[in-house]
Structure formats: structure tokens, C-alpha cells
């Protein structure tokens, strides 16, 4: 079968124009300074022009009858499929391309027929009407085929490694101030930095084999000005696919009201899903954009428009959830999730900017930038709330046994998880500290390591511990026993120092801070000794001059007094606790040294005067009993001794 183009004549003037244009195109095509795109366009134009000029003057007279015959062939081809329920590209791609050829024939006819010499006649008009009619049938059919191909050959974005690579920073921090298990946090704080592997590998969302089919349908529908239908169908199916994908990713839709009322466990779970979904969706969208690019290649500037139409609704859902989270009340346990969210948006922002770089995508771009700002504000507010919450922490009863306050544990473990977010926190806190003096500048020539102790996050960490210290000081006042106050503070400061010395925190707290705080807890140890023992030991101090002048009775009283004092201390302080074995041992040794030495001197010098009977304990006894102190289980000497004797 021939081609309408060869039958439909052109008027002579037009022929000249075409010849001239073709000449120009050839000349231009020979130029070396052309990029590939332009070269492609020129070569296409050239082939079009050639097709038009094939029409020789001889063919000009060819009759209407011939055109009609050509038309009949195409019409039959198209009508033939009308009753056929099966889908063209499924049954026979060759048939499909024959079909497309027939459509092109009709198109050419519709374009060329009005130029026929006998244009305007009734017959010609009728033929045109039939052609338009059959064209509409074909377009309708192609639209269905398009939808079908898109649906049937849709590929789900392989979650595969993506889902497993992204584990986020699995920091579980839903603890309240009361119960904190150190181990859990330590285990959890191993950072798994991933999620941003690469966007280099862009999987296909539609089987690559059908892309040419989609393109050929697009070309034909656009050529017949059925571009609106094509775009609507394409957008509609692809948008549904994206929504479906969100369902696969288990992203649920919540109203903002729901999110604000949601309990933390659910919220935590949803946030983790959201983070994963955002990471995956941005990569999915890179594929989507490529698909749009492939299908709409050479068809004008519809690609970005369609891409935005496809993705906008689903992205709005993701954005809304982010906004809702950022609106929530700032609570300390939310910080890590907020920082995770901030990080995932920040990390993807560049991709988002690239994906939506065109005018049509401006709104999406701006929304994400706004979300990032909002998450930053919310994270910052939460961070400061944390400090306020420490300051506001009220308790009326002291921690039993002078042990480590749950608040101390909570704060220090909380702080310990922050360094993995160091870079984000430095960004978030930078503006806050900008006005304050910046020691980093002064230290620029110093060691780089030491400057880490002056980064905004480090300063903030220390400001938090500062609040904590003030709080602990006021909490120590809850103990009536002054010595226990010191034990409490010593324990808590020691705990803080131990945490600050951990590899995660060491560089941020810095040697200076650690030194200062070691001094602090040691001071409390000294103060404890003074508060507990000074009065008892003063009994053992005997005037060095004239021992004989000291009466035996006084010596006996003093000895008894000391024994009673010791037994009382023993009774109360065996019930106190120093959880850290090393610290406990140190204090026991130091106490032992002072007490046992004084006792040995006293008894050694005066045993004859006092009499064995009154020296209830040997120095070895005392040494042994001192080791019972701070074990956290109250014991009594009187009873045990009476039982023993």
C-alpha cells in the first residue's frame, strides 16, 4: 500500500518553499557546531521535508478515488480492532504497529485532504468526516491501550536493599525520667548511617520493553491533538501507582488532629515509617521523572508538568505528616525522632530541588524547604525544653541510700545519644550561639581535637549538665544527714564524669571539664569524711603531753564514745550505697586509713589504761567493718556481736 503523502499534491509555491527550506536544513546540518539535540531535530525535519517533496508534479493530478482507496485500507484496519476485545500490544506487537501505521495514514489524510484541488465538495467533506470519525475511534482505543499497558507492565519499585539499608539511627528513647537502662541505650546508639546510598541506580517503574510502545502511542495521539487525553490518562494511572506504592510502604493517612493526639509509641512507629518512606519515595520519583522523560521525549515541555501532577498529591501527604509532627508539643523523648526527620529531609533536599527544579515544581520545593525549617525549629525547641524540664523536675523524697538520681541517669544517657547527631545539632544550634563569644576562633591554632569541645553542641551539652548540677545540689538538701548529702553528690558527680569520659562524649566535654568534675566529686568524698568522722575521731585524739594526767576514766569514756559512734555510723552507713565498686573501695580505703590509724594509735598507746575489756574491736575488726559500709544493706554491729558472743 502506498502512502497518502504521495497522493496528496502540494501547490507549486509550497513546493518551492519546501525545497528552499530543505536546502537550508542540509546546510545547517553540515555545520560542526551543533549539539546532538539540534542535529536530531534537523535530521527529523529533513526527512519530513523529503517525504513532502516526493510528491512529484506528475502525481498532482491523481484522483480522489485513489485517496479513497487508501483510506479504506486504513479504516478497515482500525475498524477490525473495534470488535476485538483483546489488547493489541498483548496479542501482537506487529499488528499494533500496523494499526499505528493506519492511524498515521488517516492523520495525513485529515491534514492533507483540505488541500486537494476539489476541496470543498460534498464528497470530500464526507470523506473527511469519516476520517475524523475513525480517528476518534482509534484515539479512544489507543487511550485504553495506554492505560492497560501502564497498569499491566507497572513494576513495583524494588524495595530490596533500600529498605534494609535504611535503618535510621535506631535510637530508642521512649524512657521517662524514672526508668533508664543504660545498656539499652548503649546498644542502641550504634549509628547506622545510611539511607542515602545513591540515586545513581534508577530502577524502572514500567517494564523497559513497553517504553517504545508508550512512546509510539504518545507520538500518534499528540500528532492528532489528543494530547490532553493522553496526559490525563497517563497522569491518572501513574498517580494511582504512586498512591498504591505509599500503601505498600505502609504510610497511613492521618489527620493533623490524629497525629497531635497520638501516643508516643504509635507516633514513634509512624515517624520511622515516614522516614523510610520519604527516602524511598524520593528515589521512586527519580524513576518516575525518568519515565516521564522517556515517554514525553520530543513532545514539548509537558514532562515536568506531568511529573509534578503525578507526584504532588502523595508528597503533600508526606509533607502534612511532617508538619503535624513539627507542630506537636516539644517533649524530650521526641528529640531523636525529630532529628532523624530533619536529617532525612536535609539529606534529600538536594534531590528534591533537582527533581522539582522546573517552574511547575516550585511549590513542592518550597514546601520541603519550609518543612525542614519547621523541623529545625521544633527540634531546637525540644532541645531547650529538655533543659527546662531538668530545671523543673520536682521530687519531694530523696533517692534512697544516696544513690544515683534517676534524673542524672536520664540526662546523661540522653546526652550520650546526642553526639551521633553532632553535625545536625551544630547546624541547629549555630544561630543560637552566634551572638555569644566564640572560643573556637581563639583556639584555631590549637589542636583540632580540643576545638570539638567548643562546637555549639558541646557548649550545649555542658550547659545541660550545668542545669543538672544545680538541680542535684538542691536535691541533696532533701537529705537530713549532711554526710549523706555528700555521698549523694559524690555518687552523682562521679556518674556524670564516668559518662562524660565515655568515648562518645569525651571530646565534647573536654579534659578541662572532666578534671574539674573529678575534683568536685573528690571534694565531696573529703567532705563526707569530715562530716562523718571528725567528731568520732576527735575522741581518739588524746593530748600528747602528760598522758598520765589523762585519767583512765576519761580514756574509757572516750573509747566507749568512739565505739558507740562507730557502731552508729556502721548501722546507718552500711545502708548507704556507692554503686560504683571502685569509688566505694577508694572511699573505704581512705576512711580506713584515717579511722583505723587513729584507732590503732589510740588503743596501742592506751590499751593498758583502758583495759582489754573496753576495747571492743580490734583494728582488724574495724578494717573489716569499714568494708561493709556503702554496700546498701543496713547491718547492725551490736546485734551481730551479741549473737556471736
Amino acid at each position, binding site marked *: 500500500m502506498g502512502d497518502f503523502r504521495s497522493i496528496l499534491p502540494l501547490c507549486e509555491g509550497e513546493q518551492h518553499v519546501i525545497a528552499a527550506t530543505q536546502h537550508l536544513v542540509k546546510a545547517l546540518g553540515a555545520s560542526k557546531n551543533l549539539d546532538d539535540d539540534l542535529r536530531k531535530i534537523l535530521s527529523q525535519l529533513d526527512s519530513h521535508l523529503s517525504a513532502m517533496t516526493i510528491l512529484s508534479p506528475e502525481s498532482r493530478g491523481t484522483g480522489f478515488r485513489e485517496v479513497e482507496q487508501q483510506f479504506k485500507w486504513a479504516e478497515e484496519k482500525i475498524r477490525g480492532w473495534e470488535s476485538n476485545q483483546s489488547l493489541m500490544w498483548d496479542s501482537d506487537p506487529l499488528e499494533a504497529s500496523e494499526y499505528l501505521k493506519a492511524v498515521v495514514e488517516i492523520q495525513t489524510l485529515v491534514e492533507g485532504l483540505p488541500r486537494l484541488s476539489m476541496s470543498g465538495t460534498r464528497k470530500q467533506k464526507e470523506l473527511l*468526516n469519516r476520517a475524523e*470519525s475513525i480517528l476518534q475511534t482509534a484515539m479512544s482505543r489507543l487511550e*485504553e491501550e495506554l492505560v492497560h499497558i501502564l497498569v499491566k507492565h507497572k513494576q513495583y519499585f524494588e524495595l530490596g536493599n533500600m529498605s534494609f539499608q535504611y535503618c535510621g539511627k535506631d535510637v530508642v528513647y521512649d524512657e521517662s525520667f524514672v526508668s533508664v537502662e543504660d545498656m539499652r541505650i548503649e546498644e542502641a546508639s550504634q549509628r547506622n548511617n545510611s539511607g542515602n546510598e545513591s540515586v545513581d541506580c534508577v530502577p524502572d517503574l514500567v517494564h523497559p520493553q513497553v517504553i517504545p510502545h508508550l512512546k509510539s502511542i504518545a507520538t500518534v495521539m499528540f500528532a492528532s491533538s489528543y494530547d490532553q*487525553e493522553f496526559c490525563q490518562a497517563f497522569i*491518572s494511572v501513574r498517580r494511582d501507582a504512586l498512591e498504591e506504592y505509599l500503601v505498600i510502604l505502609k504510610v*497511613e*493517612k492521618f489527620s493533623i488532629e490524629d497525629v497531635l493526639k497520638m501516643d508516643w509509641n504509635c507516633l514513634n512507629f509512624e515517624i520511622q515509617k515516614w522516614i523510610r518512606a520519604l527516602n524511598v519515595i524520593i528515589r521512586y520519583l527519580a524513576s518516575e521523572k525518568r519515565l516521564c522523560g522517556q515517554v514525553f521525549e520530543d513532545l514539548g515541555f509537558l514532562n515536568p508538568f506531568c511529573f509534578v501532577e503525578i507526584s504532588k498529591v502523595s508528597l503533600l501527604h508526606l509533607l502534612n505528616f511532617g508538619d503535624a509532627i513539627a507542630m506537636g508539643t516539644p*517533649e524530650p523523648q521526641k528529640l531523636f525522632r525529630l532529628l532523624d526527620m530533619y536529617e532525612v529531609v536535609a539529606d534529600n533536599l538536594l534531590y528534591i530541588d533537582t527533581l522539582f527544579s522546573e517552574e511547575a515544581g516550585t*511549590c513542592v520545593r518550597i514546601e520541603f524547604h519550609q518543612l525542614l525549617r519547621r523541623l529545625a525549629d521544633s527540634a531546637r525547641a525540644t532541645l531547650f525544653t529538655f533543659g527546662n524540664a531538668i530545671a523543673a523536675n520536682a521530687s519531694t523524697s530523696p533517692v534512697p541510700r544516696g544513690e544515683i538520681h534517676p534524673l542524672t541517669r536520664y540526662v546523661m544517657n540522653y546526652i550520650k545519644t546526642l553526639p551521633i547527631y553532632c553535625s545536625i545539632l551544630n547546624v541547629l544550634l549555630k544561630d543560637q550561639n552566634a551572638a555569644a563569644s566564640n572560643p573556637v576562633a581563639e583556639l584555631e591554632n590549637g589542636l583540632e581535637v580540643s576545638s570539638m569541645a567548643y562546637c555549639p553542641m558541646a557548649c550545649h551539652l555542658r550547659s545541660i549538665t550545668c542545669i543538672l548540677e544545680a538541680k542535684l545540689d538542691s536535691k541533696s538538701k532533701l537529705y537530713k544527714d549532711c554526710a549523706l548529702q555528700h555521698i549523694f553528690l559524690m555518687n552523682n558527680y562521679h556518674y556524670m564524669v564516668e559518662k562524660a569520659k565515655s568515648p562518645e562524649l569525651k571530646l565534647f566535654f573536654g579534659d578541662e571539664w572532666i578534671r574539674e568534675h573529678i575534683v568536685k566529686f573528690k571534694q565531696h568524698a573529703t567532705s563526707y569524711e569530715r562530716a562523718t568522722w571528725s567528731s568520732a575521731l576527735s575522741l581518739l585524739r588524746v593530748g600528747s603531753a602528760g598522758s598520765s594526767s589523762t585519767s583512765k576514766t576519761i580514756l574509757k569514756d572516750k573509747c566507749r564514745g568512739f565505739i558507740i559512734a562507730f557502731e552508729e555510723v556502721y548501722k546507718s552507713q552500711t545502708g548507704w550505697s556507692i554503686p560504683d565498686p571502685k569509688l566505694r573501695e577508694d572511699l573505704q580505703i581512705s576512711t580506713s586509713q584515717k579511722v583505723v590509724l587513729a584507732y590503732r594509735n589510740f588503743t596501742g598507746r592506751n590499751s593498758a589504761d583502758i583495759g582489754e575489756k573496753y576495747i571492743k574491736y580490734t583494728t582488724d575488726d574495724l578494717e573489716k567493718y569499714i568494708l561493709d559500709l556503702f554496700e546498701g544493706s543496713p547491718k547492725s554491729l551490736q546485734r551481730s556481736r551479741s549473737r556471736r558472743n
Partner: protein
Amino acid sequence: MRATDNQGSFLNRISIRRNQVVSMDGNHEQELQDLELFQKQVADRFSDLLSSSSEDGADALLSVSWLRKLVDVFLCCDADFKAVLVVGRDPSQISKPPLDRLVPEYLDRVVKALDVCNAVSHGVEAVRHYQKLAEIAVSAFEQRPIFDGQVRRAKKALNSLMLTLEEQEGSNLKSAERTWSFGRRTANITDRALPGRVHSLSWNMAKGWSAAKQIQAMSANLVMPRGAESSGLASPVYIMSTVMVFVMWALVAAIPCQERNGLPTYFPWPRQQGWAQSMVALQEKISEEWKKKREKPRLAGLLEETQRLERLGQSLIEFAESFQFPTGAEGFEEVVAQVAELAETCKKMEEGLVPLQQQIREVFHTLVRSRTEILHVLDQGGKVSAPPM
């Protein structure tokens, strides 16, 4: 979105305080003046809106451009309101009764309004889909000479449009959209190709979310302050709440929204008050329309352009059904005029819908910001207790 110029526009909107910034010492007389000014601003803005919404004017009631004005009025009122409630205000003032109850209630309404904004925003997406279908019909009808093929093309698009518009309330918004391009055959094919395809996955809002319930909840505890309360800050909180309920209600009535069964048509607003007069007048007009609509409970909504599409679409389908090539000149002129009207309507939608959507988004962001600011003041007033530990 016009997020970048938000700040500028916010400052522009605080016209109310321009002359009064100096005397912000919170004395009683000043406060009374502020309140009066706020009431007057609200009254003026709505009276402008009422007078511009003539039947045949450029901004017909519930047209896209009218809704854009409405949203603008809302943004202005919100800025004025914040100027009264927040700017230069001693935080302790709003933490005292009755404001310690009224302000949190207001914030609760704000959160509900945010969800309404989202629902409406999705609804605008649906209206844009109506527009796209109508545009296909327009471009088909505008072909000259007009042949069977183009008429059939237009008819197909219009049928999809009518099907979508006639979707019943309570059915899924998106399913209508989905069916548009699939002829019956493709629908079968699609089902065949994808057994078990879940059609209900295109929820727009959370499952069970209802625009009507949301509006009801927003207005349920809205009571006009009386007696001594009415002279204080309770009054602007009430006025702004009313404005918010009205604007959200009007948007829900105009734009397709998830679940509008039971949308209230009556509100006990004090029409004798100057600030409420025009607003109540508008509310009554819209309620009338809504009652008419309820007789055929369709999803499409009261948007003027949507109704026009429905009317023209119906008429043009009739034409298409009786069309036979070649066209007789008889009655064709009327069709040409209808097509022109359809084209004009599409043009208005094209020009207005995306900006409307952006404005609604702006309302969303503005409300979020307002909420943060008010919470901040509340916090300073010491009313928001420290978070639980």
C-alpha cells in the same frame, strides 16, 4: 507557593495597629479601641465581600475568584486578630479566665481548620480534573468544520465529566476520577489484568474523617461572650472563631470534600452585631444553595464554575447526541455560544484554581504559625505546664 513573601504580606495586613504601636501599655481604654477597630475591620471586609458577590459580577458568589477573595479576607482577619491578641500583649492577660479556656478552644479549632484546609486542597485537585475534561470538550468543539469524530470526542469527555460530577456523596472521590478515561471495556480489561486491585486505596484524608463533623465540632462550643466577658479579649476570640468556622464551612460547601453529609446550614451567629451582619447574610445565601443541592446529593459542590460546567455539559451532551454531519445552521449558534462560555469558564478555572490552592496552603501555614505564636504567649503566661517526664 508564596511562602517567601508571607512575612511581607503579614506586615501589610496589620493595618490596625499602625497608629497605636506607641501606646501599647494595655490600658483599658486602648483595649476597647483595639477591639472596636478589630470589629470594624471584620465588618468592612465582609461587607466588601458581600457587595462584590453580585449574581452577574466578575466575582459571583462561590466562584473561584470569590473564594480567593474569601480566603484573602480570612488571612487579613487572622493578621488583625493576632495584632489584638498577641502583639504587645501581657502574656498573663490571656492566661486568666475566661481566656484560659477560650484560647485553647480556639487553638483546637485551628487544628481542625488545618485538616479542613488539607481536605479542601485535595478537593481543588478534583475540580481541576473537571476542568481538564471540560477543556477536552472545548478543544473538540472548537474545530471547524465540525465533524462527527470531534463531536464524539467532546461527548466522551463530557460524559466522563457528568459521571464525575454526579458521583454521589459518600462514594469515593477518586474512583470517579479513575473511571473517566476507561471505557467500559477497559474497565473490564483493567480488572482482568489486575485481579484483587484495591479500589479504595485512594483515600484523600484519614479513614473516617468527615468534613461535616469537623465543621460541627468547630462550631459546637462556640458561644458568644456575655456580660463582663464581652468587653474583654473573649470577644475577638469569639469573632475570629466565627470567621474561621464560616470560611472553612464555605470552602467545604464549594469544593468537593470527604464526607459532607450533615454539613450544618444554620449557625447561631449574632446577626445584629455589626461585624456579623454581612457574614451572616453570606452564610444564609450559601445555606440556601446548599439546601437546593441536598436534593441531589452530589459530590461536586457549590463552586459556581462547577455548576456552570454541569449545566453547559448537560446541554452540550444533548447537542452531541442529536448531532449529525453535516451540521445544519439551525441552533448551532447557541452551541457556539455555550462552547464559548465553557471555554471562558475553563479559563477562569485555569487562572484561579492553582492560585486558590496555593492560598489555601498559605492559610494552612499561617494558621500553623499563629498557633505557635499563641502557644508561645500561653507558655509565657505559665499556663502550659511543663511536659510530663
